[in-house]
């Protein structure tokens, strides 16, 4: 479905992405993870066309989309959920869901996508997407828009950012439902172990390079196998460093 070939991207004399080669097959849930500043979000933006690579090719559904605009890629079947959703004075939740769906969506369908992200349609459908909404509400609306868009490939840039713990489990089920309903591929940039656990494949990006790429099982043992888990102190155990005793 999506193939990135030798993608390079630099800004201000800094190489942000170095020869990225990645294939994502149809109907896969893929999570890209890695340390902050490793180039994950830049990679997502390059797939959507928000950033242009310095070199390399992007093939989507057999077509070279490297030089296509954001709009053309969106029409061709790519969707993108922003890490920090944009506010619009005047545009309502309903307006944005309708634009996402590409036509006037039935009220009951708009209600369904809002309900899936834990928002009451009656309360939110006609609300302006402005500064009166909290970061968490905006994030849910952003995810609902992507559910309404039904793209062949949907990219989420750190969807968990700004979502409270109570909503987090719902978020996981939203991705799973979206994956089942749309039958498209979902690409999620995330640091969250719970999100990694629902992936078919995990890609580890470090210093602008793909360090590892494999199935969830392979990758989880590789990534977390190398990290010594946090040692929990027993009640009677004394701290070896910085203890109060």
């Amino acid at each position, binding site marked *: 479905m999506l193939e990135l070939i030798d993608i390079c991207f630099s800004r201000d004399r800094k190489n942000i992405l170095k020869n990225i080669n990645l294939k994502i097959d149809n109907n896969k849930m893929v999570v890209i993870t890695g340390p902050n500043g490793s180039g994950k979000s830049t990679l997502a933006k390059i797939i959507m066309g*928000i950033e242009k690579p310095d070199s390399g090719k992007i093939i989507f559904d057999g077509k070279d989309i490297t030089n296509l*605009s*954001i709009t053309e890629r969106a029409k061709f079947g790519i969707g993108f959920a922003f890490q920090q959703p944009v506010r619009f*004075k*005047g*545009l309502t939740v309903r307006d944005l869901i309708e*634009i996402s769906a590409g036509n006037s969506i039935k009220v009951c369908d708009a209600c369904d996508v809002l309900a899936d992200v834990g928002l009451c349609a009656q309360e939110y459908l006609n609300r302006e997407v402005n500064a009166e909404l909290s970061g968490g509400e905006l994030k849910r609306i952003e995810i609902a828009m992507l559910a309404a868009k039904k793209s062949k490939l949907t990219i989420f840039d750190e969807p968990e950012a700004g979502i409270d713990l109570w909503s987090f489990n719902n978020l996981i089920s939203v991705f799973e439902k979206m994956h089942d309903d749309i039958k498209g591929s979902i690409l999620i940039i995330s640091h969250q172990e719970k999100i990694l656990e629902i992936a078919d494949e995990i890609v580890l990006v470090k210093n602008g390079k793909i360090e590892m790429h494999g199935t969830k099982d392979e990758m989880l043992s590789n990534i977390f196998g190398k990290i010594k888990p946090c040692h929990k102190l027993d009640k009677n155990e004394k701290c070896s460093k910085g203890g109060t005793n």
Partner: protein
Amino acid sequence: MDKLEKDLLKKIADIEKTPMGAYNIRENGKGIARNTTANIDIVTKEDKPGIDIIVKPNTKNESIHIPVILTQGGLNDLVYNDFYIGENADVVIVAGCGIHNNTCDTAEHDGIHTFHLAKGAKIKYIEKHYGEGEGTGDRILNPQTIINLDENASMEMESVQIKGVSSTVRETFANMKKGSSLVISERIMTTGKQFAKTVFDVNLDGEDSSVHVASRSVAEDDSLQEFISNVKGNTKCFGHVECDAIVMGNARVISDPKIEANNVDASLIHEAAIGKIAGEQLTKLMTLGLTEKEAEEQIINGFLK
């Protein structure tokens, strides 16, 4: 009335057929249709052009349409309309002016509307302004709205300049007594070399009176807009003015807000923001499949909705 006039009425007052309730339709400086009801009287002024609209106390769920249309160039139509709204009445008033000018002469309408709301009266006032026509003559509208709110009276004013008005100076003055409330929502669009100036001058004289003014405007091409507000809190009261403008091309927007607390219990807020459409807003809508132009239109239409 031919199609041109009907289209103008539809644009400014949503009138397609004879309106329900009381109405007075003015065309090219003359009244052409009028209806009164048991509770609402409309009387022609004798000392100057215009009408008095008198609403009896406790009148509820009735409407008054008083649209004005101009289809002749070279006409300067000045009209004084006074509204007397009785105690505890609750009505909707739809005004507005549409100009179709196919000549090279100026067509101008200056409507001076004075509202006297008695105790506990409530109105929703909708005013739309629109200009069109192939002629080079200017289409000028200078509305003046004077609002006097008695105790616990409330008014919601929706003022919209749709498009096509060459020049406008829109002045609103309000004097507010105890417990009265005023909510003004203004939308203005200017293009080409058009000019629009808005002035709001509000005196919060009565305890617990409140005003909320929200102005949103879009200035395109080489147009110029000016927003001036002066809210005076003379007692325990609340005032909130917000002015948002999107500026495009070579257009200019000047915002000159003033809030004046003349009493320690006056609570006044002013917010103003002027700028071009944010790039991230365009990008977001493009990721949903809109072109840049379509995204721009959506943002502007939503902003002025």
